[in-house]
């Protein structure tokens, strides 16, 4: 045969091989998979979340194995990664229509995914399954339907370093803003390189606005919203901002705030450089591991002087949702239902050191650990407050507020200009 013909044949074969290689792997397998489903064979649910790496090794997989044993015919494939990677993965999956069947969600993402049409209505799935939702502690709803259920909640109380407080002559953890300011002042004056409070305002992770700034307004029954729209120019947000500015001007906040992230904040507290921080209960074990000598306690976020109402407690959740594109929504709901059952939710909240999403669940640590018991008291006497949950582009709202708040703190602009600029920037996302 002619060499040229042979060469052409070889080129065509190569091209075909490459095209075949580029073809989606799932393509040829799909009919077999469908046939398998029809014959009642195994369905594999993909579950993307950031929880598994944050839990003791193997513990989350063990819960999934238990689910698989209870539900023959359903397998769960965990796709795990760090929080930030998971977020990007879920965004990309939502964009491409390839979101996993079940996804771990942060309340700050929900509005955008709902707008995109990538999350299934859990209200519909609950009603199809005949599920009694009264056992759920919370549901994140938009347009009258539930799209996310908080599986476990991490509340953000105030951590106080008892040794530093004692050295500074502060007898009791502060309960009001003026007590807090006085304690912060005494702590800062008590030793070299010790500060009263720590405030992370990094623009990379702007959740300091949620946990460390707005939380002051929520703790005194305040709000940053009115009738579903931003209202950051109100007296409560103004008062919280002025309080923080007072601390800033007094020099009692640890330096480096404008590039500080949540993990840096915890690091400052762990190393005994700050006396007080607002942080997640999830950090208790880490603090104990990194500095076994750290003598610390937990208290509720101080409220405005004279306020005696219930205190809002900032929180973050490990939420769960189901993909609108999932062909196995009924099976996906079974997994959600399993995780939200009283027994499993107790187990999960125990290993995560979090508060349960099922009202009938009680985590083990409440009985066995003094600090968690104290936190549980704080949790029960207050109410969960995180107004960023369910807002559109929530993370960006925090970032926009942080940009303005940085200018206010370093004296580049007035409080009026700060709050008006933030209000204007926020309103643009609600139009």
């Amino acid at each position, binding site marked *: *045969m002619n060499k040229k013909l042979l060469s052409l044949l070889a080129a065509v074969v190569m*091209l075909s091989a490459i095209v075949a290689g580029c073809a989606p792997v799932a393509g040829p397998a799909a009919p077999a998979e469908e046939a398998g489903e029809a014959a009642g064979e195994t369905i594999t649910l993909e579950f993307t979340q950031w929880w598994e790496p944050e839990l003791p090794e193997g513990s989350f997989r063990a819960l999934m194995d238990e689910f698989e044993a209870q539900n023959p015919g359903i397998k769960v494939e965990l796709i795990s990664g760090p929080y930030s990677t998971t977020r990007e993965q879920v965004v990309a999956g939502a964009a491409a229509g390839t979101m996993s069947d079940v996804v771990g969600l942060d309340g700050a993402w929900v509005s955008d995914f709902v707008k995109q049409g990538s999350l299934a209505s859990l209200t519909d799935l609950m009603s199809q399954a005949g599920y009694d939702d009264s056992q759920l502690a919370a549901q994140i709803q938009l347009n009258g339907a539930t799209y996310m259920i908080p599986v476990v909640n991490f509340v953000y109380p105030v951590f106080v370093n008892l040794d530093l407080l004692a050295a500074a002559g502060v007898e009791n953890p502060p309960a009001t803003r003026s007590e807090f300011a006085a304690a912060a002042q005494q702590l800062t004056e008590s030793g070299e390189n010790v500060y009263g409070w720590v405030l992370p305002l*990094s*623009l990379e992770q*702007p959740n300091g606005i949620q946990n460390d700034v707005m939380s002051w307004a929520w703790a005194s029954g305040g709000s940053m919203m009115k009738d579903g729209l931003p209202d950051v120019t109100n007296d409560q947000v103004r008062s919280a901002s002025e309080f923080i500015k007072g601390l800033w001007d007094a020099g009692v906040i640890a330096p480096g705030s404008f*590039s500080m992230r949540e993990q840096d904040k915890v690091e400052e507290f762990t190393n005994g450089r700050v006396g007080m921080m607002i942080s997640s209960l999830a950090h208790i074990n880490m603090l104990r591991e990194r500095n076994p000598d750290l003598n610390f306690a937990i208290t509720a976020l101080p409220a405005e002087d004279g306020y005696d109402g219930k205190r809002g407690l900032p929180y973050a959740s490990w939420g769960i949702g189901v993909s609108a594109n999932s062909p196995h929504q009924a099976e996906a709901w079974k997994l959600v239902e399993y995780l939200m059952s009283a027994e499993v939710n107790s187990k999960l909240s125990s290993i995560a050191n979090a508060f349960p999403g099922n009202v009938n669940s009680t985590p083990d640590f409440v009985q066995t650990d003094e600090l968690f018991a104290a936190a549980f008291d704080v949790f029960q006497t207050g109410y969960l407050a995180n107004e960023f949950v369910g807002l559109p582009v929530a993370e960006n709202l925090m*970032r926009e507020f942080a*940009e303005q708040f*940085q200018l206010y703190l370093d004296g580049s602009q007035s409080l009026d200009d700060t709050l008006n600029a933030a209000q204007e920037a926020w309103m643009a996302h609600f139009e």
Partner: protein
Amino acid sequence: MSVDGRFAANPKTNNLYRIWKRVIPYGYLSPTILLLAVLSFLPIGMVVYYSVMDNVIMNQNPVFVGAANYVKILTDGVFQTALGNTLYFTLMSVVVHLILGLTFAMLLNSKLVSPFTRSVFRVVYILPWVFTASIIAILWRLMLNPNGVINYLLEWSGLVSQKIEWLSSRQLALHAVTFINIWSGYPFYMVSLLAGLQGIPDEIYEAGTIDGANGPQLFRYVTLPQLRPIIISLAMLDFIWTMQQFTLIWMTTGGGPGRVTEMLSTFTYKLAFSTYEFSLASTSAMVILVLSMFVALFYVRRQRASDA
């Protein structure tokens, strides 16, 4: 009879043969063409398409808006700030990379240094280039922390009386991230220029010396002209890479405080993953692409000229 002969016997098949002959080279090229199409042309084409729609991905039925996104991006104050910051960051990085890289390369190329010492220093100097951007960011965040080693040394030596917030200060943050980028990038220049220096024949220096040239004159009239092609190539590549630097900025300052370290890369990222404005992000990416293309075009033209 050969296949060529059979084709030649008939005018019809002769035409077929001609077409065949034209097609065959494309058959050979097809794997490369396919890879280029999938990995380059398709993504770029999609970004161009996205940039002229109102908002893709988040919008189920995007609408064509022409150049509206380009007008919006180019007139956006934050974009202009990011462009200015990016140009400062890039130009400073490229210029100082060159100066430091050339200085260290010449030090290492000196005959006064023994081969062993040269190898040791070569390893030491190249270390910053070995680290990934994430490691560099973490390392410098720790060192520039108000309680970090830099502030400790400055306070200990009496140069400053209070801690400097290198990455949190609106006056210092842009210079601090530029410095970190300079630190991490100069070894690339050093290694390349050292290779170039070692390729300059000694005879040229000897001839210059006989003609009465002193050290600076040898540098000005021998070393620099000999290194010129390498310097131009390095500077252009570095310009393109530095302009797209994202990880370092994101992990150290996130574009803050305020907007003082906002770069085109962080601006684009925020549009895509913070506000989910994928069309505007694509438009911003197109602007970066066009700016990079200008430099790339200049680079290619220079390469072609030097090849000729």
